[in-house]
């Protein structure tokens, strides 16, 4: 293998409502995302293409990125004054971790990374929920970490108080550390079922984690045995210096916006990873790219114009690719490498763009030698991303 980091270009898709474009909701205009049928058909499409993983959004992008103002609250898009009814464009947002659990038994290969916030959640519950997803999916679970910077988050958990906005990333680091320790709190062989001593577990292989942070503390051990992957994938989206430092210290997977700054950010991340005492190959980087696809260039441009005309994108600075599947494949091959292992694509309208990614883009990548022609089978999501089975921090020397 010459350069495995782009010979096998890793491909992920962000599943956010009915699509990443604000007009997607109007294009589809329904309560479909509140049904299991919607999600099983979307996941079937992702599996058809052989995608490595999908992330499942917790709310509209402005929430996920923490860029929302307080006028835009949890859970759905803010009402659009241009629309005839306040209800137009409003989408349901199911709990993404449970959606992942719902689709796990009816999928076999795709990694499932629900977005879960740190500020409003309990590390203990996040840990057991993701460990359970990992058990149910046979090692395909991950966590797309959301560190919200909105003042209003505290209103969802009152009277508990939440950290001030300036400290949210510090708290997130403590949250993730607690979750990771809980995953290790059962050694892989803690369940012994030893009839001779009547013991089901060996307490020497179970560990209190005794995490004592500034913002939270957790005793442990977990109630859930160690997940099959040992450590499910922890993914952090890099949007600034603090998220970059968090990713360098805690992430297995980092999402970095595609565009002119991609490789600069990736280099700075690599430096921060080294400064955190970790090996560069411990953090996989995928570039975030919005896509509007069509079989011909004109069709894609028309779709993009129509979507933008219907509802302008929130952040015109977000990179988006408009064009054909073949051109997208070529574009990704040119941009990958140099520390970027692949892409997370954000389909503008999932119903339109995901089938093109699965059925057209991936064959184009395979034809160019950037994806294995038969797809790659691996025992876990970690393995598919090229990450090893992690050593348990609490395990004594090998028995």
């Amino acid at each position: 293998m010459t350069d495995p980091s782009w010979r096998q270009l890793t491909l992920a898709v962000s599943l956010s409502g009915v699509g990443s474009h604000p007009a997607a909701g109007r294009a589809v205009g329904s309560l479909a995302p509140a049904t299991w049928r919607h999600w099983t058909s979307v996941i079937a499409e992702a599996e058809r293409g052989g995608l490595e993983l999908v992330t499942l959004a917790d709310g509209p992008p402005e929430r996920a990125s923490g860029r929302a103002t307080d006028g835009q609250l949890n859970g759905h898009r803010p009402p659009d004054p241009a629309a005839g009814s306040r209800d137009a464009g409003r989408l349901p947002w199911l709990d993404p971790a449970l959606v992942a659990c719902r689709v796990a038994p009816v999928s076999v290969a795709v990694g499932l990374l629900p977005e879960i916030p740190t500020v409003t959640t309990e590390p203990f519950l996040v840990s057991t929920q993701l460990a359970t997803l990992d058990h149910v999916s046979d090692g395909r679970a991950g966590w797309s970490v959301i560190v919200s910077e909105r003042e209003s988050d505290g209103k969802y958990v009152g009277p508990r108080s939440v950290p001030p906005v300036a400290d949210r990333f510090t708290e997130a680091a403590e949250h993730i550390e607690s979750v990771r320790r809980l995953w290790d709190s059962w050694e892989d062989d803690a369940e012994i079922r030893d009839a001779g001593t009547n013991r089901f577990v060996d307490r020497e292989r179970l560990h209190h984690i005794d995490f004592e942070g500034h913002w939270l503390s957790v005793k442990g051990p977990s109630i859930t045995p160690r997940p099959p992957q040992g450590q499910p994938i922890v993914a952090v989206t890099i949007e600034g210096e603090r998220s970059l430092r968090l990713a360098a210290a805690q992430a297995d997977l980092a999402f970095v916006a595609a565009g002119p700054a991609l490789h600069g950010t990736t280099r700075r991340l690599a430096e921060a990873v080294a400064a955190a005492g970790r090996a560069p190959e411990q953090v996989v980087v995928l570039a975030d790219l919005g896509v509007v696809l069509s079989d011909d260039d004109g069709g894609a441009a028309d779709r993009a114009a129509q979507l933008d005309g219907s509802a302008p994108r929130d952040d015109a600075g977000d990179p988006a690719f408009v064009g054909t599947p073949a051109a997208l494949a070529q574009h990704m091959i040119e941009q990958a490498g140099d520390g970027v292992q692949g892409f997370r694509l954000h389909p503008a309208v999932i119903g339109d763009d995901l089938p093109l990614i699965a059925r057209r883009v991936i064959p184009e990548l395979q034809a160019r030698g950037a994806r294995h022609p038969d797809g790659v089978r691996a025992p876990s999501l970690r393995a598919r991303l090229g990450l090893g089975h992690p050593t348990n921090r609490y395990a004594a020397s090998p028995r």
Partner: protein
Amino acid sequence: MSAPRQIHLAAHFPGVNNTTVWSDPAAGSHIDFSSFEQLARTAERAKFDFFFLAEGLRMREHAGRLHELDVAGRPDSLAILASLAAVTARIGLMATITTTYHEPYELARQLGTLDHLSDGRAGWNLVTSSDPFTGANFRRGGYLPYDRRYERGEQFVESVQLLWDAWSERGSRFEYDGSQVRIAGEFPLPPLPQGRPAMIQAGDSDAGREFAARHADGIFTRHGRVQDGVRFYADVKGRLERYGRQPHELVILPGTTFILGDTDAQAHELALEVRRAQVSGPHAIMFLEQLWNRDLSSYDPDGPLPEVDPDLTAQVRAEGSAQARMLQREAVETAARWRARAEAGNLSIRELVIEMTGRQSFIGSPQTVAEAIDAHVQAGACDGFILIPHVTPGGLDRFADEVVPLLQERGAFRTDYEGPTLRDHLGVTRPLQPPRPQPARAS
């Protein structure tokens, strides 16, 4: 003759305690999804109302050390139920969830999500807890005093219901302002298939019963015997009227164990065998330590009971054990009674513990067990049972195959589901009430 009262049955996944016999050759995994799937499918094949998971948010400890003897390790309940929604089609999916260490917005969204993902099969067994031992795993620690747990519980239920009712043409904003729950924002789920997921409740205190009468669709109770059951049933159903509710709107379901054999005699033999497997020598010593509150590890489980009295001064040894807390209340008297019983019957420690603790509720041939279950319901002791098999995951097979058909023959149990939702199965469909007025803020 009028039609017999209809029995409700539910399946409890075997618990993280010594009721579950892991040493049985048929005992499978307690964490693999296949075990949950198999038991849920068996219960669905038998037309049970729901599949049930208990909650425990801290690993049990005994004398300051993690407990080793019993089955340990469990998944996140709502996560497993969401996965089970993919491999079942009709059975209700119910989890125990404490209002103390969960947050109402998150739980309303998760239960609402489960209800959507299962087309109306989500259920919630509400418990209130107050337990710093468990609290050590959570942000707020043991923040809630015992006597305020129902204050939190009430506000939790009211706020969760407010959220489930929040989505309308005009938006989905909510605001709830209480002493224990103070939340505001927007709720992202459209109306749930059940309107509100079915909710049962497990508290037995006066406050618990009143809470159930006001809010719950069912009660998970310990009162398994006919006489206790009839009293409890009458008491709780009698409380419904003051909330404008009908007796059938609250289903009373004791948790119950069972042992089936080809004959009654064989079942009783098997029951004793299971009891021996449930109470090993180390188990018997540990059980005694819960009452004596002393280190009894030097005692022989096959020998006589300790001469010393329970230690009432030391800290409780069995952290997180409700059983231990109950035993502690009358420790010296109970110990004296046990000693007398052991001397009278010439019983060893282990033999005594086998006799004193949890004999199975129903033991017999399928015919005997079917008759006994039906008799309880027809006598007004309960509306049915939550069955707790002692082996994972096949412990319900024989009941489903041999007892259920007999109940069906008696006309006391459904031969197929009549509606799609858990509320339909429980028979507790009722028109949604408008959101309740919010309580005055505590001073």
